[in-house]
Every structure is written in structure tokens, then in C-alpha cells.
């Protein structure tokens, strides 16, 4: 198991390195005129050139990447070209916001999806049809629309939750819950729609297998068959879909964070990408890739634990 985990971690690190090269190259290729953007249209060209040189933009791309990498391995991601903020500090401020959002969505999605999926897979009939219908509707509704409706109804009209902002759990747990609930619910709707359908299909599939029929024929109580044996078999594909949802959430977080004014890395991504602030974008890319690698690693290990055959692949 340890060798399996180390193999996966090694591939993850290689992926981080490859993506850092690709991201740095792709970001630098359009050659954003940072000096002109910073100094404005009125600045003389010599001053703009000096500013670009001070940022190292007159050096070859490979040298710039090597410098960035040498600093990054020491956890120094540089400073924003546009706001002078330390990228590391800025990510440290913003990452907990996005992670708590994604963590909350994953928790809600896992619980609700397993309940709905198992219920639909076991009961079938009208319950199954209803869960499938809810899934299709949840999948079809754009998440920005769900988000806007939630803000208007629950924050602005009813005043149950704040419309904007974020409170860290370390400062106030109730404050955190109040600021995170609506964004989590908004992002959970499409995630639940997708994962619950996967759980339902897997449960139906496992229920039809020979070993489950044998267990039921031996007279084991049905709930015990479901919770001890069916769920274990159904969990593997469901976990994979849940992990994919988690990774995909980074994209959904961009919109939700902007609508709720959450100071997370999703909102930061849009803001800085349009300006070509390479140090910040590289920081965001690296953090995102690391999150994806870590989540995939955890899922791989979990799946391998649930299904030893997976370790051989």
C-alpha cells in the first residue's frame, strides 16, 4: 500500500512540474505589457521599458522560469506586479476560503448523494423516478442562476444569511456557517445531481451481482446487506465521481465567489488573469494543481483500500 501511495505521489509531483512549465510558458507568450498597464497611457516609453526590465520581463523566458522555480521551491512565489502583495501571503489568506467552500460542498454532496442514490437504487419505482427527475433538473440549472436566486431570496429578501463576505471558522463558527451556507448550497445542487445518479447506478449494479443475491439467500437482513456489502462495492465509482466534482468545483467557485464577494482564489483567478499578473496566476495554478493532486491521491488510496485489485493497476 505504501509503495502504491508513493508511486501516485511521484506521478503527482511530475504533473506539478509539467504544468508549471506549461502554465509559465502560456502566460508569458502573449507578452503582457505590464509596465504600460501599471504606469498608464501617459508614461514615457523609456519609463515603461525600465519598469518591465525591473520586473525581469526583458530576460529570456527560460531564465524567468528557472528563477521562478528556484524561488517557488523555497515557498517564495514573489509579489503581485499590480498590487505588490506577497503571493504566498495572499494565497494563504484566500485558500482557506475556497477550501472551506469546496470542503462544505463535498460534505453536503457526499451525504445527500449517498442518501438519495441508495434510496433510489434500493426502492426503485416512483422514488427512483423522482430522484432521477431531481437530478436532471439540478444538472440543467446553471449554477450562477441558482446562486443569484439564493442571494435574492435568502439574503436580501428574508435576511437569513449575509449576502456577501466570509467569516473564518476560527473567528466565529456561527459566522462561518452563516457566510458559507448559501455558497455551499448553490454549488451543491449540480454536484448532488451528478453524484446521486452515479451512486444510484452503482447500487443497482451491485444489488444485481451474484454475491449479493447469495447473501440475501442466506437470510442476512436487507439493511445489513446494503450497508455492509452493497455500499462498499458502489462506493468506488461514486468516490471517483465525487473527486471529479471536487476538482471541477474550482471552476464553479469563480462565479460563486464573485457573486457572494468571497475573497477566495476563484475570484482572484479572474481578477489577475485578465491583467496578466504572472506571479499571482502561477501561484493560483500551482495551488490548484496541488489540491487536485492531493485529492486524487487520497481518492486513489481510498479506492485501493476499498478495492485491493485497484492497487495492481
Amino acid at each position, binding site marked *: 500500500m505504501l509503495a502504491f501511495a508513493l508511486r501516485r505521489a511521484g506521478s503527482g509531483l511530475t504533473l506539478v512540474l509539467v504544468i508549471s512549465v506549461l502554465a509559465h510558458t502560456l502566460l508569458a507568450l*502573449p507578452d503582457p505589457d505590464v509596465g504600460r498597464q501599471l*504606469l498608464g497611457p501617459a508614461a514615457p516609453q523609456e519609463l515603461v521599458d525600465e519598469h518591465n526590465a525591473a520586473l525581469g520581463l526583458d530576460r529570456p523566458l527560460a531564465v524567468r522560469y528557472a528563477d521562478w522555480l528556484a524561488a517557488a521551491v523555497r515557498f517564495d512565489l514573489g509579489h503581485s506586479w499590480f498590487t505588490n502583495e506577497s503571493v504566498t501571503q495572499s494565497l494563504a*489568506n484566500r485558500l*482557506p476560503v475556497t477550501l472551506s467552500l469546496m470542503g462544505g460542498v463535498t460534505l453536503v454532496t457526499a451525504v445527500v448523494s449517498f442518501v438519495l442514490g441508495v434510496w433510489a437504487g434500493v426502492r426503485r419505482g416512483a422514488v427512483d423516478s423522482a430522484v432521477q427527475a431531481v437530478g436532471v433538473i439540478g444538472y440543467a440549472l446553471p449554477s450562477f442562476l441558482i446562486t443569484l436566486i439564493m442571494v435574492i431570496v435568502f439574503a436580501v429578501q428574508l435576511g437569513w444569511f449575509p449576502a456577501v463576505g466570509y467569516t473564518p471558522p476560527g473567528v466565529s463558527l456561527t459566522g462561518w456557517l452563516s457566510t458559507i451556507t448559501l455558497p455551499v448550497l448553490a454549488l451543491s445542487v449540480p454536484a448532488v445531481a451528478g453524484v446521486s445518479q452515479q451512486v444510484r447506478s452503482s447500487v443497482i449494479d451491485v444489488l444485481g451481482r451474484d454475491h449479493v443475491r447469495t447473501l440475501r439467500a442466506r437470510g442476512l437482513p436487507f439493511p445489513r446487506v446494503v450497508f455492509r456489502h452493497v455500499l462498499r462495492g458502489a462506493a468506488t465509482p461514486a468516490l471517483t465521481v465525487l473527486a471529479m466534482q471536487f476538482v471541477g468545483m474550482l471552476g464553479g467557485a469563480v462565479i460563486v465567489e464573485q457573486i457572494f*464577494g468571497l475573497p477566495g482564489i476563484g475570484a482572484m483567478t479572474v481578477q489577475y488573469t485578465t491583467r496578466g499578473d504572472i506571479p499571482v496566476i502561477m501561484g493560483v495554478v500551482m495551488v490548484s494543481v496541488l489540491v487536485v493532486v492531493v485529492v486524487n491521491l487520497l481518492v486513489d488510496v481510498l479506492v485501493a483500500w476499498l478495492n485491493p485489485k485497484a492497487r495492481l493497476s
Partner: protein
Amino acid sequence: MHTRAPATPATAAAGVALLVLAGCAGPPGDDDPATLTIGTMTVPQSLDPADAMGSAAPYFQAVYDSLVRREPDGTYAPMLATEWSYDDTLTELELTLREDVAFDDGTPFDAEAVKANLERFPEAGGGQAHTLEGLEGVEVADEFRAVVHLSQPNRALLYYLSDAAGFMANPGSLGDGLATAPDGTGPYELDPGRTAIGTTWVFERKDEYWGEPLPYEEVAISAFDRENALVNGVRTGQINAAVVQEADQQSVVRSEPGLESVPQDIDYQGLILFDRDGHLVPELADRRVRQAVNHALDRPTMLDKLVDGQGELTDQVFGTETAAYEPELDSRYEHDPERARELLAEAGHPDGFDLTLPRMPEIVGEPMATSISTDLAEVGIDLEWDELDPANALRAVFTDQAYPAMVMNNAQPAEDWVTVAELVLPGTFNFLGTTDDTVGELVREIQNAPADEAAEPARELNRHLVEEAWFVPFYRLTYQHVSDGNVEIEPQSGAAAPSLYNYTPAG
């Protein structure tokens, strides 16, 4: 304050810095009358005065005082300078300074500080460095008297000294440190522990301030990416005050009971014709062609459909509060495609001509692009839009000088000379250096006349520019200064962002 922001542990920083907007956690908060929370879409590049800009003024006014204070009506009042006077040539401005002001580390504010700050400003290369172009130097006449020497009169110097160029930092801190650790004599100091740069800035009132303290113990400025989030924050009382620019969000604000809003016509939107001499598009060298472009645009429909009627039609670039402004010039060019075609024919272009303009989607959305293209096509001008990405748009337009015109939103400051310097003199927005004898003569007259005699030539210059169709303004945009009802906001003449001094508790 003379310390760099400490590198606090990540969790602590996140813990304290991000709670600002939360509805129920800790200060500053919406229901705390001692705290003012301003929402904005503007993020300052840094808190170094060299990087200051008018739209981010409140960030800087919290921690720095300016030499001259600009009142809400645009008049000038003493601040760090108590008196000022020009010599007869208008190239020497003598400033008499307050004698009871010191920086936090005890360094006195004096003429040496003024010299250090003003002489650094144009050298530091910030976005407003050009406003002190022509500064020859600052003479220290005595401890509290400084004389600003100019190579030629700068009629907007007091305006600039009440703006970015006038913010005074501790001479001992001038350099990179100011970017995140501002060191001025202002009424507040930055709380680095509760500030998350790029998102939220928290300023605490200083224990000792030389002037009248501002009414709030604490000021928090929170930056947003989307205006609907900003407006939702005001609707729920998490934000006390904000400027709302988008027409649909203004409509939300107006329909919301409990919110107070004050309208202000401020920026104008329109085409700046750079190529009036026909270097890129020869047809534009003819005044009749430029006038035809003005007649071709259906401004009333644009105002109605593109910005929901939130603005005033105009054909002039000078703002309503300037001496140059003339109300009748707002309707010089009626929408008249027939007249436009006649003018084109008279100029020898009965079949029109081709035009390519840059399009930055955040300024020219699809509806505006289509509207302008359609109007121009109706008179035979075939317009093609080049979509530019924001990272390279300025280079393409101003460095490469690749386009003959551009749609822009421009501020309309109350000071005539700011508009003359920005739009009329050869330079940034007149980078091809268009001029003529009348412009040259009137500019010289405005520049050198005593203040009370400059109004008439300014009006004459305005009339001349409109007649020569140097510009194609569409309308002045109306913005709403909106508050949650707990704050009174007094708009700042000629600026979209009210000064920090203009916020007071309601009632």
C-alpha cells in the same frame, strides 16, 4: 507609522482579515456606527503616494494628508499648506505650511518633506507622474515655506496638489516600503493584521491627529469584482456606501426601500479621435468627415438602450462644472444621417470609407459595438472592431499608435486645465500632436491669463473643439452614490469616488 507589515501566520491573517464583511462577526461591521465600510471596484496598485490615482483617493486620504484639500464643490481649502500664492509669471507657487504636524516617528512635516515628496513624484514613474511634468524643483525658503518652481505655468497645479501629487509621505520612508506600509500624517493608520491586500483594507483612527478627527473610529474598504455583489452588500447593510455605475444595478438601487442614493453626472463616454491629421485614416483629416461621424451616431437611442437613460447627452468634453462648459454645445450634433452623408459627399467621400477601431469589451460591450457600427454603416462608414485583451490594449493604442480613435470613459474634472492638459495638448490622448493656430493661441491665453480672465478663452476653446469635431462624445454617465441609510455621502465635484472626508453618519 513607520513599520513594514509583519508577515503574520497565514491562519491569523486569514482569521482577522477576512471577517470584515461578515454579517455577524467582529468589527468592523455594518451595525457598528463607529465603522464606515466602503465597497468599491477599485483596487490601488499600492499605498505609495507615487502610485496614487484619483479613483482610489479614499485609500490614500485615510493615511496621507494632501498639501491642499479639495472641497466637495471643487474649491480649494488649506490642509498641510495653509496658504499659497503664485508669482506674476505663474511659474512659482509659494506654499506656507502648517507648523504643528509630525509623522508618527516624530519627523516633523516641513518644507524639506515637501521638497522630497514633490521632486520624487514625477521621477517615481507612477500613473499620475505626468501631472507634475514641468516641475523644475522645490526650493526650501525656510522651515515651513516651500516654493514650487515650474518651467511653464500649470493652471491645474492646485488641483494636482489636492490629488495624487499632493499626498505627503514621511521622507524617511520614501521607497518600496510605502507600498504596503504607508507612512503619512493622515487621520488613520493601516491595520496590517486585519488587512488582506487585494480584498480588504482596514484603517484605525490615530490617537493623535493634528486636524479635526473624521467621524468614524474605523474605516474599512472592501474591493469587489462584480457590482451586483457590491449592491447586495449595501442592500443587506454589510456595506455602508458605494458608487454604482452599471445601469441595471442602479435600477436595483432605486427600487430598494431604505437605501439612499445621490446621482452624479461624472464620466463622459465617447470616441476620442486621435488621427485628426489623417496619418492612419486620411479621411479623418477633414473636419467635415469628423462632423459627419458626430451626426451619424444616434446618441438618444444609445443613451436609452445602452445605459437605460442614466446620463445626459453631450457633444463636448468639458464637464458641467468647468468654466469652459456651454450648455448649448451638448446638442451641437443632432442625429442626422442625411446631413452626415452630405458632409461626407462635400468632403469627397460620397461612398464613405473604412475604419478600424479597438474594442475593449469592458468598455465597449457587444450592444454598443453593434449600435455604433450600424449607425456609421448607415452613412457609408464601414467600421470593423479589433477586440483587444486588457493586458495589451494600452500598448496597441498608445505605444504602437495603431488606431485612429478609441471609445473611452473619461473623467470630467472641475478644473478646465486638467481637461486641456489631458485631451488637448500634445501628449497622452493627443499622441499624434494635432493642433491649429486657434488652439495654440487659446491654450497660451488660458495658461498665462490671471485666473479670473481664463474663463472666456476656455469657453472659446471648447466651442472651437466642438466645431472642429476633435471628439465624438456620446453622453455624460450618471452614477449613483448609494448608502445603506446610515451614512450621508456628499459627491466630490469632478470625481467619481467621493473623498473620505465626504462621509458622515446619517442624522
